């Protein structure tokens, strides 16, 4: 029995709201200050930073050694998932005139191509609102860009890598996700690239911790919903993830993995479920004929799942008091669809919404059980299923709060699905 999804109603089009909220962040890049500031100044960087370099020779020595061990550009991290490929690109913004001159044509072309577009081909997208400018990574200042495209378009990407002669710059690419294994041979044969295959859960945690640490001085990476059980006053609020442990990390991609994280290097995979974002989209395509995640979510936003689901009140006429089950709880997902008249009266939007509610509630319920079993109160949800999906996030927040009687807190991260790719990028330092 689960919340029926009506709880998130009354907010019009939640997805747009979310877009707006994130869009405003893009307009405020100045607030993004690199954390590495105190460490050192970029080599040959802006003059006003020179004053900081004089304080010790050891800092200079460190800088030199960093310079030597630093991997050559371009800096990429890649997460090849079951549905989407997530690509994280670090664009150096502190390139000196000298460097610019030395920069080979292929490197320049890659940088220009990625940074001057927000869409690549028909399906590649750069999530501009997620861009992290003013970041210092391995002594270089620049922006981190977040790009995604469907996994099925990978051959096109490889072809492009070949055309842009990527392999002349690097012959190793840091990649994680199942696709790093599945497509390893394709990378080799089609683009002459070796993959440094990295475990996706290692990368995920590394990525989460990194991103959270580098954006700590700006608007929080992490947020939660205040008053999740009160639709009128439910509000998105920043959350400080300074002392994150222990935390339950729920990654909702095509499938779902649930990790218990006790420290930077100590985590375990508690469980997972195959009922994830892929299930939602797959079922939606079958039930409604839609083709994309965005389309499915738009339909879900307009639908009414209580026409599809059988609620406790449909069976009991009200609450099932004996077991404290409220009448509005879902007793049987899609349970009304066994009746022909009801089948004939539901819309595609209703079906899309019911699918979304079913999958979300199930994840919520498994998550809650894991949190109880592992005795962890803080739950962080990540993964691309949550992208532009306020409906699910609010439902998860609600379900966790309601069924745990306020014991559990659902947290979300703005860079939802990119942490694996970020984690992969961070491994680049160890690749050479």
């Amino acid at each position, binding site marked *: *029995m*689960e919340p029926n999804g009506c709880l998130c109603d009354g907010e019009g089009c939640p997805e747009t709201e979310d877009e707006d909220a994130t869009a405003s962040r893009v307009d405020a890049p100045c607030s993004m200050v690199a954390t590495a500031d105190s460490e050192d100044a970029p080599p040959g960087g802006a003059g006003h930073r020179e004053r900081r370099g004089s304080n010790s020779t050891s800092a200079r020595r460190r800088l030199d050694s960093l310079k030597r061990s630093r991997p050559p550009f371009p800096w990429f991290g890649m997460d090849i998932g079951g549905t989407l490929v997530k690509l994280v690109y670090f664009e150096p913004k502190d390139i000196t005139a000298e460097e610019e001159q030395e920069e080979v044509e292929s490197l320049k072309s890659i940088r220009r191509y990625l940074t001057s577009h927000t869409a690549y081909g028909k399906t590649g997208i750069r999530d501009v609102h997620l861009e992290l400018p003013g970041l210092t990574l391995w002594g270089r200042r620049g922006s981190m860009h977040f790009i995604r495209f469907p996994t099925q378009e990978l051959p096109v990407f490889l072809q492009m890598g070949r055309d842009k002669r990527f392999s002349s710059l690097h012959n190793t690419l840091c990649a994680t996700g199942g696709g790093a294994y599945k497509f390893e041979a394709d990378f080799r044969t089609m683009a002459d690239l070796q993959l440094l295959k990295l475990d996706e859960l290692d990368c995920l945690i590394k990525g989460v911790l990194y991103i959270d640490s580098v954006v700590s001085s700006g608007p929080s990476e992490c947020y939660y919903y205040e008053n999740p059980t009160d639709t009128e006053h439910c509000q998105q609020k920043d959350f400080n993830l300074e002392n994150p442990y222990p935390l339950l990390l729920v990654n909702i991609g095509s499938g779902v993995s649930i990790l218990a994280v006790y420290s930077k290097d100590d985590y375990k995979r508690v*469980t997972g*479920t*195959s*009922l994830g974002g892929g*299930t939602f989209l797959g079922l939606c395509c*079958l039930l409604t004929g839609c083709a994309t995640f965005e389309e499915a979510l738009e339909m879900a936003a307009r639908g009414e799942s209580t026409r599809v*689901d*059988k609620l406790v009140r449909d*069976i009991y006429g009200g609450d099932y008091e*004996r*077991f404290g*089950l409220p009448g509005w*709880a*879902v*007793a*049987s*997902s*899609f*349970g009304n*669809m*066994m*009746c*022909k008249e009801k089948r004939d009266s539901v819309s595609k939007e209703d079906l899309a919404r019911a699918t979304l509610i*079913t999958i979300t*509630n*199930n994840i919520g*319920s*498994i998550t809650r*059980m*894991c949190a*109880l*079993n592992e005795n962890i109160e803080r739950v962080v949800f990540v993964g691309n299923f949550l992208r532009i999906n306020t409906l699910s996030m609010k439902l998860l927040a609600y379900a966790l709060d309601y069924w745990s009687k306020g014991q559990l807190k659902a947290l979300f991260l703005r860079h939802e699905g990119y942490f694996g790719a970020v984690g992969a990028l961070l491994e680049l330092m160890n690749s050479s």
Partner: protein
Amino acid sequence: MATYGETDRGSHSMDKSIVLPPDEIFRNLENAKRFAIDIGGSLTKLAYYSTVQHKVAKVRSFDHAAKVGFQHESDGDPLYEISEQEEITARLHFIKFENTYIETCLDFIKDHLVNTETKVIKATGGGAYKFKDLIEKKLKLKVDKEDEMSCLIKGCNFVLKNIPHEVFVYAKHADSEFRFQNTHPDIFPYLLVNIGSGVSIVKVEAEDKFERIGGSSIGGEFSKEDMAKSLLHMISNDIGQLACLYARLHNLNRVYFGGFFIRGHPVTMHTITYSINYFTKGEVQALFLRHEGYLGAIGAFLKGAEEDNPNQYCWGENYAGSSGLMSVSPELNPMQRTRSGTFDMLEMDRLERQLVNLPLLFDPSSYIPDTVDLTEDTLAREYWLCCFEEALDGVVKRAVASQKDQPGAAERAEKFRQKYRDKLQTLRHQPFAYGSLTVRSLLDTREHCLNEFNFPDPYSKIKQKENDMALKYYQKVLSSLEELSWEEKQLALVRGLLAGNVFDWGAKAVSDVLESDPEFGFEKAKQQLQERPWLVDSYNQWIERLKGPPHKCALFFVDNSGMDIILGVFPFVRELLSRGTEVVLASNSGPALNDVTNGELQILTERIAAMDPAIQDSLNEDRLTLVQSGSSSPCLDLSRLDKVLATVVRERGTDLVIIEGMGRAIHTNYYAAFSCESLKLAVIKNSWLADRLGGKIFSVVFKYEVPSIAHGQH
């Protein structure tokens, strides 16, 4: 589920055709009372209570007081009288049928319902509301609704307590898909995962203490063929995962799955089993129930029958009146399908006594009575099914002969033959129908079928004749023993016990001999016995033990009447008594083959006591006690014994268990471990079995065991 659509259509055009004559389904309606009904999405389960009048065999002693000392004269007078009396017992009927038949069934019940005391029908299940008016109109009974979940749990407790092979695990790739589990003496606590249209997860801690700890709205819906399987997997997996999480959180390791989503569906059971195994790393097993579909009806019935105190009694599944677990794929057994239409029945007889574990079992929770599980042993199954089929003619003949002067005996015997043959046929296709198929269950099914057609004791006259004959030799046997040295005497007593055990009408090889040679005697039987060393021979250890201090009290499960009990068991018991060991003789409560019943044994003991002062004294001093086992089977389930026996065993400080005969010591209990010394002895009177055990026919098993400190492994 796919059936939903069909059912909905069907309910508009009530299908009036019932394949079986309804009186074979709704049996005993004329004595029925206390109705309960559970109407689900597609199936209706009806429950009622009836009183059954049937014949029981009684023995009554003639007044022989005047004749003491003359018994040896062959005056043709039997030593006791046999009569068949009508007795009334209680039975529970549970019938499951498709909702399409509801109206037809209600009409039939209305027409045949005589009892006017019944005013109320308990109802549960989602459909109870929908059909309320119809039921009230048709039956003129007031529908009294009961909470679904509490009915389900009440029913679950009831079957777990009363049906030994109720629980099974599902193993898709094993020889037998169904692995029946021994019911733990304490059924609580457990987790019940009921999967209907939604899922409920209930923790049950005691009879009336349960809590819904969780659930899921993802249950058994959807239909389209190409997607169905994927969805089925997805949903089964999901439920399995949630169940595991709840089991872990509440520290429970018994998880039962029920609800119409499962209902004997192999893919679902397999996926859930796999999922549970995967998510708990093998720590928790998914358990399923044979009568899962009846739980709600049983529970609703029990709620309405509280004044009959059904929970105070023990009940037993009647194999003759129960359909058994249906094959999961209907095409596997078209015969049964057409025979019973879409009706499924469960009948439970009220047992006369409370049944409990033998207190001397080493580990009651791991005790399994049966030696060979025929569901897993194909060769053995083939053999025994044939064996029982071949023996059927003889049993029918014997049944008719036992009621020569009674009307209709031949027709009834024919009906018995038909019924038992059908059962064997069913078991050939569905060995798992009544739990694990065992020699015991085959024998018990035969007894149930005989009783069904009012042949309570086909061997009564043979037993009477043999008892008579054996009594005449009693003193001769005693005096021949007196001439022997102590060592010789001990061996002679054991050989006597074994020779007596040769007289067994249950064994085809022997019944052929007895049939053709009525004079086949005790001495001849001794000659048939295998010479030492026996097939299993711990006689030397036994003798060494006898040289030590006497046992405090021996519990002796006896076997056949006639030579066996009189010339084999009594002399042996007499020796134990003379050593200062008290003896408790446990015999069957009701008849089975030529096994001696408690009623008969009382008379025989009286007769022997009259001849033998040693026995008389022991009886007077209460050092020899007769108790009934609570069983009416040629085999022995030590987890279901008369409570009185258990009390006596405990009070006397019993330190030796003796089990005699193939049925009790070979087919069952061969591997039973006790917390005290035990002696299992039998003559293998079946060449196939002897061959299997690596011996020849009339091989001897003499298994004396002393529990070691670290016991527990066979």
